[in-house]
């Protein structure tokens, strides 16, 4: 294990333990709920970026993977109410399989056609869920969250901790991919798929890997959703917001590194949380829209790229 990798993993572990310690100290539940949403976007943006940023396939169907995770959990809760980790695993599994299926689509669909297919997939799945009355169908269903959980004073804090851990894990996954030959292979696909194939990059395997991991992470992020929101119905679980945000955040942060989606999700997610309780929500939407357009037009490499440029310029001046 390289020194860098060791350090990264230590930082990850420290962050997980840290977020647990926070729950023993802080009472105010609002921060937990707000943080939960932001961390959920860290997972989604990171997951999106593994496929979109690294491999170059734009997924408009984040909501489909997220909602499949959420609805897998709902179906399980309705049958035998398993503990949360089972929900996470199963949510990840179902969405991961969905991702694998989408991966095979990349055999035939390149570029924008793939994107449209993911969008269509989201609509079709929403239709199916709307017609599946066991999980509430279009009418939705209320989910009772467990009264208490060991080691935590209430369930909100527990959910916050779980999502914090998931965020750390997903960033770590993205980091590991990026630093390995897998990441370099993906970058080759992004730059020129045919050339990569000629050079002997196992493009199908890598694409399947990317879609599966990306889908699974989104599903895991969706699994606790029904406990968080208590009431689940298809229009909110499949909301276009998830697609827009999970795409806008890496774009704003920067798509080529693990840091970009993290920075983007924390900044944009937090800005949205603040805007929800301060500004009108028209402004909220306006902020996301303008940031998104502004960044793709003026700072194509996102914040991370922007900082890099500024630093390079400063370094140049010093020298």
């Amino acid at each position, binding site marked *: 294990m390289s020194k860098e990798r060791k350090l990264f993993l230590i930082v990850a572990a420290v962050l997980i333990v840290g977020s647990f310690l926070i729950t023993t100290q802080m009472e105010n539940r609002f921060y937990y709920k707000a943080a939960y949403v932001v961390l959920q976007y860290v997972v989604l943006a990171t997951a999106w970026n593994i496929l*979109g940023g690294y491999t*170059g396939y*734009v997924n*408009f169907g984040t909501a489909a993977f997220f909602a499949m995770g959420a609805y897998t959990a709902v179906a399980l809760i309705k049958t035998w109410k398993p503990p949360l980790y089972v929900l996470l695993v199963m949510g990840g599994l179902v969405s991961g399989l969905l991702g694998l299926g989408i991966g095979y*689509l990349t055999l*035939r*669909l390149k*570029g*924008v*056609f793939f*994107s*449209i*297919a993911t*969008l*269509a*997939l989201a*609509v*079709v799945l929403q*239709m*199916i869920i*709307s*017609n599946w009355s066991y999980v509430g169908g279009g009418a939705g269903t209320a989910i009772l969250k467990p009264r208490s959980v060991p080691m935590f004073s209430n369930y909100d804090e527990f959910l916050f901790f779980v999502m914090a851990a998931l965020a750390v894990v997903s960033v770590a996954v993205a980091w590991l991919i990026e630093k390995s030959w897998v990441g370099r292979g993906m970058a080759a696909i992004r730059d020129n798929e045919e050339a990569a194939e000629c050079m002997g990059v196992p493009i199908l395997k890598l694409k399947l890997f990317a879609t599966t991991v990306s889908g699974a992470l989104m599903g895991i992020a969706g699994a606790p959703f029904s406990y968080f929101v208590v009431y689940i119905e298809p229009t909110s679980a499949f909301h*276009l917001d998830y697609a*827009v945000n999970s*795409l*806008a955040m890496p*774009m704003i942060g920067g*798509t080529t590194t693990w840091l970009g989606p993290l920075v983007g999700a924390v900044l944009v997610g937090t800005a949205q949380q603040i805007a929800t309780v301060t500004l009108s929500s*028209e402004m909220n*939407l*306006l902020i*996301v*829209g*303008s940031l*998104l*357009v502004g960044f*793709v*037009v003026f700072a*194509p490499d996102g914040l991370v790229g922007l900082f890099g440029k500024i630093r390079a310029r400063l370094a140049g001046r010093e020298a």
Partner: protein
Amino acid sequence: MLSIEFLLNALIAGLLLGGFYAAMSAGLSLSFGLLDVVNIAHPAFIIFGSYLTFYVNEHFGFDPILAGLVFAVPSYFLGVAVYRIYYNCFEKTGAESLRGLVFFFGLFFLIEVILIITFGVDYRLVRAFYIGKSTSIGSVGIAYRLFVPFLVGGILAAVLYLFLTKTFFGRAIMGVAQDSLAVQLMGVDPIRIKTVAFGIGIATAVIAGSLLIIIGPVEPTIGREYIGRVFAVTVLGGLGSMTGTLVGGLILGVAESFTSSFFGPSWALAVSFGILLICLAVRPSGLFGR
């Protein structure tokens, strides 16, 4: 229940709706199909057109179709401006595939927000003498509310078809689509051609918007419901083929209508999207693809 009359009525209803879908998709077929500009924001421009139409209908009693045609002119210049930005920021640098897509996605959102701030989130409707009336030929009923958009949609597709095949400029657009370099060698600036084509695409979107609000009420975020449909039509028909767009629109309309009539409306959307998915997987170049 399965009478000939019923079948015929379902077919007519589907064809009428399909003509309108073709009108919605014609502009996209031009920009996306011919010029590879993936204008995801196309439905937002349609809704923008609906609101312009609503405004002049509500305040000055303009006929919706007339309003659509009048607004098509300034919208052309709006389209020109949008394409200029797109070209300078993305196409020129070869960044259109990822960031260009996201640019239009963001534009989609911005248009929605601007509509929300200006008009509020309420459903808006228009009035015209033909809305609410219907006629029948034999046992087949035809509502003018649907027939007028069908007619205008058909004319729009026909005009675009003639424009693309018979005029110099239209042929230049087709030329750019096929071989941009060759056109350039012939002394035509492909960027100028693309700008014009994109402008026309936005102009038709605004006309389609005036048709949409004739058919039913519109609210600012309803455009999302049509992203899938317009792309389904464009892809199904074959990119850049006006005949294909018309046929694709009709197929989608009829498929939705038949599903609603025979299996129940709750599956209508899924079936049309199913067609899109199958089409993408089996024949991405569409029915009339180049």
